[in-house]
């Protein structure tokens, strides 16, 4: 198991698991809100096609959570 940080929480993930899957497994189902409607979004297609699950990883914005493998010590923000 590895650990990364999401906002102020420590999330555990299996080796090779995506950040999106680890967050979903931890009961966190949304991690951003939309620009116009302020609507919560998280995983939808989970295979990299829909771009709903975007978040910021180690300062790099607009990463697809479902396509980004969690690494130990990652700093993940909305």
């Amino acid at each position, binding site marked *: 198991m590895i650990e990364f940080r999401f906002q102020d929480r420590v999330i555990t993930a299996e080796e090779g698991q995506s950040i999106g899957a680890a967050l979903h497994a931890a009961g966190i189902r949304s991690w951003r809100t939309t620009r116009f409607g302020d*609507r919560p979004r*998280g*995983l939808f*297609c*989970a295979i990299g*096609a*829909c771009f709903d699950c975007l978040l910021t990883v180690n300062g790099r914005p607009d990463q697809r959570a479902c396509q980004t493998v969690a690494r130990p010590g990652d700093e993940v923000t909305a």
Partner: protein
Amino acid sequence: MIYDLAVVGAGPAGLTAARVAARRGLSVALLDAYAKTGGQFLRGAAQPRLTGVDVRLGRRVWAVEKSQERFEIHASETTTATTLLVATGAHDRVIPFPGWDLPGVLTAGGAQALVKGERVKPGEEVVVAGTGPFLLPVAVTLLDAGVRVKEVLEANRPSPRMAAALARVPSKAAEALGYARRLAEARVPYRTGHAVVAAHGEDSVEGVTVAKLTRDWKPYAWRTVDCDTLAVGYGFTPQADLLVQLGCRTEGDHVTVDDHQRTSVDGVLAAGEVTGVAGAAAAVVEGALAVHALIGAPPPRLLAERARLRRFARALELSYPVRDGWQHWLTPGTLVCRCEEVTVSALEEARDLGADDPRTVKLLARPGMGWCQGRMCGHAVARLTGHDPAPQKRPFAQPITLADLTLHDREDST
């Protein structure tokens, strides 16, 4: 190095092609966006040995250029080959309904990917809905993961054509029977002529509205079902961006190929779902056939097998269409385009201004202009403007940074 063959997509079709080509002594590069081979179908399966294949994973191919007699395949670095095989598969086809943007609504393929690829339960109490035989393995995957599957809802009705097709392909009939048995054992109702027409919840799904459907999908007799997750899929859309970029001929939603899996563009081969959604077994056969385009005549056995599996796929396509009655489920505030948050009423305004085709609607109301480039709303926007969904031309198949582009320029100038 210039490869004899570059394969984009390491699913059943691409894996087979790369393996067969390497065995025949060709130099092969195999590229895939994911960190593992297998694509969506073999997700989570053991990684196969690919002796003699240059496997390049985590490579998101964003464009292919044809220059002289070779192809330059651009990902984080450029791969050059004399022949290109595109086997980039498909993604779930989705249609809008009120509440479909709530967290906890997942595509059917996404729910399965979470279990098979990530060992994560998509939810505790899940409703599976949509159309097509894929809903069955998804429901069974969820059951096997310990999820409570409340109902499986198939919008279409059983068709005689489907029964006849199953009778001709015993392996598929046995597979379907296995799923049906598993659902029955777990007491999961499988209801045809039913659909989820709305999802409800504050910040996440708390329940869905289920309706019975007429044959053309007009809803009646509504009820609500409590659940924390909805897995919904209405078949698949081929992911043919690279082929469309190259100018390959398309028909309906897919690229056309000949007996050698050759597209209309010289040196460009295609196999698997990009040539029409037909499943993994057909993809394997087509991957093998594609290699024969480089080494000789296609073996009659493979051609016959492809024809048999394609006939079966055609029966599926005709038995599980997306019928326009889903438009009855929409309300003025329903989002059609998730990325740009374009509602049904915004599309209607554009139509009132005279926009009567998907492109003009896109220019006026912006559906399909966001991150996903219309992958999620393409079918809906086309049908809402009275057009048949067609593959869209995307100059960039993947989002890239300006830094990637400058790097690309620098390579060009050296």
